[in-house]
């Protein structure tokens, strides 16, 4: 982001904040009116607005309520405590990263196979695409329950779902990247009588890196989504998804929102980490795939 964009982004962010407060007043007004009426007549609009912004169980909590909840749940308890949001974030991040690692291996392997074998390209690639029309997120809780029934609990089921979500962008990006080697350089490799493996390692793989990293950024965000949704059925246990669900059960809206904000922060951090790795590994920094 350049400095040229700083002002527009700041204005937009401010607009979002203002809209958020207005929305909080508007959405919380009916409940707040009830409460004020019960307390007695003679309340003013200012009272109403103050009440809507400081409700215990608001329909829409205000940004400062969410920030306060985030602050207390991050600093009020030790990191290993189940009441600390950072602990839940760690659980989710672990599952997401494990799934991401598996997805990278699977995605790259599939892409290498597809690029090297024409039979795979014509028969497997359509099914890789079709596999994405299975709404895995929607059936993720089921998979977790089933795997739990046969003794796989904890990290693995969540990682599998995260893997399923993130292998596809990696495969597609990697196939494109492996094919993006310049025909001229491919010919050059042939004149050096380089074998398939050598061409792959020395030419195709480096050529694919910019595409790979673009896909990795999408994939790492997807893996967080997978891990969170996979945590839904574990109920009151650990993870951001479990926090969302328990917040939804007990009407703790502020808890839902702070878990959401934390999830967003986690995604953005992971995407930024991939971006840093890209800068370190790809010659010339951010590659041409963008």
């Amino acid at each position, binding site marked *: 982001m350049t400095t040229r*964009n700083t002002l527009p982004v700041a204005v937009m962010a401010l607009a979002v904040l203002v809209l958020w407060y207005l929305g909080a007043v508007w959405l919380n007004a009916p409940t707040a009116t009830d409460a004020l009426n019960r307390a007695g007549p003679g309340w003013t609009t200012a009272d109403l607005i103050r009440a809507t912004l400081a409700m215990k169980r608001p329909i829409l909590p205000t940004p400062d309520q969410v920030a306060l909840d985030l602050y207390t749940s991050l600093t009020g308890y030790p990191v290993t405590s189940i009441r600390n949001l950072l602990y839940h974030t760690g659980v989710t991040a672990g599952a997401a990263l494990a799934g991401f690692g598996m997805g990278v291996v699977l995605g790259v392997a599939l892409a290498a196979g597809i690029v090297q074998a024409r039979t795979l390209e014509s028969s497997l690639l359509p099914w890789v695409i079709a596999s994405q029309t299975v709404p895995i997120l929607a059936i993720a809780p089921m998979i977790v329950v089933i795997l739990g029934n046969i003794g796989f609990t904890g990290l693995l089921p969540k990682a599998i779902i995260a893997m399923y979500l993130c292998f596809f962008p990696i495969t597609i990006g990697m196939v494109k990247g492996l094919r993006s080697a310049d025909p001229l350089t491919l010919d050059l490799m042939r004149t050096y009588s380089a074998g398939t493996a050598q061409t792959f390692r020395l030419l195709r793989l480096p050529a694919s890196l910019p595409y790979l990293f673009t896909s990795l950024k999408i994939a790492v965000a997807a893996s967080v989504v997978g891990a969170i949704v996979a945590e839904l059925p574990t109920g009151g246990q650990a993870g951001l998804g479990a926090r969302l669900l328990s917040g939804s059960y007990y009407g703790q809206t502020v808890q839902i*929102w702070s878990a959401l904000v934390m999830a967003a922060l986690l995604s953005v951090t992971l995407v930024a980490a991939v971006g840093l790795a890209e800068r370190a590994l790809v010659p010339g920094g951010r590659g041409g795939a963008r």
Partner: protein
Amino acid sequence: MSRSNMARPNMAPWPLVMLAAPLLPFATPDGTALYLPQLPVALALYALTVATILAHRLPGSALGEALLLLAGVAAAYAAPLVLLNQGHPLAQAGGLWLYVAGATLLLWRVLALLAGVSGPVRLAGPALFGLALVLLWEVLTRGFQVPTILLPPPSLVLTAFAANAADLWDDFRQTVLISVLRGYLIGCGAGFLVAILADRVPFLARGLLPLGNLASAVPVVGIAPIMVMWFGFDWQSKAAVIVVMTFFPMLINTLAGLQSAERIQLDLMRSYGAGYWRTLAMLRLPCALPFLFNGLKINSTLALIGAIVAEFFGTPVVGMGFRISTQVARMNLDVVWATIAVAALTGSLLYGALALAERHVTAWHPSFRKR
């Protein structure tokens, strides 16, 4: 990349592993092992497969060879099904599984041949691959008696599909026809309109794009419980989740598409004295079509996911998400898989329809040129 000189490469000898199959048991009822010659049906099918392997060098087209070998593969896949129907347990029938494994390698050869053939027959390759996957799933789950709670065989899913057709149709109507379609249209439409607005007001675009990129990293499905809290259990909350999920992909893609018109084309439009709206309608929107379709395709799967996940947080007693969560709780996995099949089929059809429309509308685009 010429195809003619590699139309009929020699077959690798892997499928010959199945020659070793008769030495191992083909079925093992009550402790005694049964071998191939003791099972007439299996023997006939085995002979057919070996014959097709030996006959594959007969003069003929690649297509002919593929069909011949396919007969062998079909025979091999039929063998375990026939034996299962005769009541033989197959879990320890090493010979049979070696036979099936060899036939699967033979299928690879068929796929390679089909990949080399030009014309619509090429489409048979992926279809066969999928069919083989389903058949292997059937044979393996039944042969090794995988508990249906873990993975029901496709035949059971098909039975459940037929038995619950009415429920599944109601779910489809509630989730897809009511929630998904409305949410999808509202979300994509809003994204498109805001993109046009942002294109007109560059300040807005510069502010919205980073937010859009941020939103693509945020797990938007997480807002499902909030939306259910706000909009109630019916379709409105599902549509709201979908709108939030689909808005930014559409916005980003439309914006990128609107900027894809080339400078020289824009200059030409200006030299014709065309105004903003005319340029938009005649040049920039057509140029943006590939990007628009990209956004629409991404959103088609997102919308389905959003609706089903939102139904986990509360729903009227109908809908795919409701069906999945309740039937999992009752361990009726066959019904769950039938629902998944409906969802996957819906997603594929939606995606396919969009791809087809894209082909028709943007036939001029370089990505559709023949290689």
